[in-house]
């Protein structure tokens, strides 16, 4: 069986005054219908990896890869038309903060309809689908949210609407780029639970991009740890404590534990060798 997504030697670079700088430097992985986490600190290239898979590397940046296959289809030379078909129906992306990722002057309903009309025959059917999706993300009064503007919703509500919008076409792959980082801790768990259920029910593949190692280990099957644009370690989420790479160990150990104990908390010791 071909995997859902195959990535080999993915590189993303941006021009700077000192020539091109690579922010993703040869990332390779393959993904089935499972949950893969990409973990790393700010600037490690995890978000750009996610964007590159969608062909959304912001210009003047450039993404190249030795292989970038989605269900056997080569994405490297996809035409704009092919991208539109893929993005609208097969691959989706949930971003960090609904305050920015929702269009402020359009009602939630209109934004949902843009996604829904592409997969439905009639507008009425599309609207039913959109409302059903809002219900699926546990919004109690879907019609009210449908008519609301983004600024009238709280962060958690906005992010649920965003998830609903991205799951309307029932994609095969969802990329969630820090989907809960901008939310309150209590709301975070709620949104994660919703995401968890939808991904399981619909049998999607999930790439969960986060900087929160703990969160990821309880939520995903596999973890890629990125540092300075490279994958430094790949391991099963359940084996996180047995991480080999000192960076992963560092990330893991610098989290406070509720039982207390370690004081002061160790800070991350970086090694220039890792970035090679």
């Amino acid at each position, binding site marked *: 069986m071909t995997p859902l997504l195959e990535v080999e030697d993915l590189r993303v670079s941006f021009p700077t005054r000192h020539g091109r700088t690579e922010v993703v430097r040869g990332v390779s992985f393959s993904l089935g219908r499972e949950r893969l986490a990409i973990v790393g600190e700010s600037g490690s290239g995890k978000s750009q990896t996610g964007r590159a898979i*969608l062909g*959304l590397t*912001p210009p003047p940046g450039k993404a190249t890869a030795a292989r970038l296959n989605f269900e056997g289809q080569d994405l490297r030379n996809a035409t*704009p038309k092919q991208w*539109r*078909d*893929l*993005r*609208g*129906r097969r*691959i*989706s*992306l949930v*971003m960090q*903060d609904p305050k*920015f*990722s*929702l*269009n*402020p*002057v*359009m*009602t939630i309903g209109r*934004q949902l309809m*843009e*996604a829904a009309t*592409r997969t439905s025959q009639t507008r009425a059917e599309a609207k039913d689908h959109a409302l059903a999706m809002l219900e699926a993300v546990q919004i109690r009064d879907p019609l*009210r949210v449908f008519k*609301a*503007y983004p*600024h*009238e*919703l*709280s962060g958690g*509500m906005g992010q649920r609407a*965003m998830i609903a*919008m*991205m799951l309307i076409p029932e994609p095969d792959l969802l990329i969630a780029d820090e989907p809960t980082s901008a939310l309150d801790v209590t709301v975070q768990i709620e949104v994660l639970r919703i995401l968890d259920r939808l991904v399981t029910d619909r049998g999607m593949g999930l790439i969960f991009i986060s900087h929160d190692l703990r969160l990821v280990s309880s939520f995903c099957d596999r973890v890629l740890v990125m540092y300075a644009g490279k994958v430094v370690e790949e391991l099963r989420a359940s084996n996180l404590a047995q991480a080999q790479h000192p960076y992963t160990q560092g990330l893991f150990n610098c989290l406070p534990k509720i039982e207390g104990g370690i004081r002061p908390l160790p800070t991350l010791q970086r090694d220039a060798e890792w970035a090679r």
Partner: protein
Amino acid sequence: MTFDASEQEGRRGALPPWLKRLGSLFITLVVTLFGLLLVTFMIGRVVPIDPVLAAVGDRASASTYHKVYLALGLDKPIWEQFLIYVNQVLHGNLGESVLTSRPVLEDIGTVFPATLELSTVAILIGTLVGIPAGVLAAVRQGRLSDQVVRVLGLVGYSAPIFWLGLLGLLLFYAKLGWVSGPGRLDVGYQFSVDRITGLMLVDTALEGQWDAFWNAVSHIILPASLLGYYSMAYISRMTRSFMLQELGQEYIITARVKGVSERRIIWGHALRNAAVPLVTVVALSYGNLLQGAVLTETIFAWPGLGMYLTNSLGSADMNAVLGSTLVIGAAFVALNLLSDVLYTFLDPRVRRQQ
């Protein structure tokens, strides 16, 4: 969920939000107009022109001078003079023009429609060309079409308008004969059109005089394009920068991920957001045009407010100058109110805050 603060206030039995909004607009209007009156009044007192002398001429006897001095109320304390002035203005009395010896309000009623017509056609041209040009420049940032728009805008912004006007007249009127020359109508039509609104294009159309209508079009098209070009330069630059800002926002990525077409992303998502600040830009450009483009009106013998104001200034006709200033100020206030109202239509966030 943070739903609708205004709704809760409604439950508390306060005024409905639209009435509150209307009320606050009205108060703003009154305060601004009062300030405007104060400023024009002060200008009238400060300029070194003797209003009595301007009215009676320098050969009048001392007793005539004194009579007019009293009649104008110049012996009264200054605050009383101001109240008299406000009272007169509120009754539609802007004084009499020394130059035309007609009430200033009547004079302005004659010249302002000419300026209004010219500015309106100009701002329509400027907006309808400027916004798409700015959008194109933003979407094709750094490429040839961006450079073309930039250079055209730069020329429009920096070339003196009287020079462009003369060139335009020379080329399109004298050499090519594509358009009509100075004035609002050919002499032959001038007395056949009755005055309804004072807007030539509207009057001729209302009266069904289509010959005269097309004649008016051929007269207005050159000066209006020229002024329109000038505002187009500004509007396209602003559109470009607003669009670049919006196209870099995350909701654009969201739309792309949904598979929305590029055209809809540009015109439906980005421009829809950029339209909010653009309203102010267009309103300000329009306001500038309404002051009367003195140079353009002079070159094209356009009997508008700019020309009237210049003539009045030249002959120290203070009533006419102050009256015109007041009208221009009022036009600015009206435009600001209009853009405020448009804001509430374009931006749902403003709608809720009111």
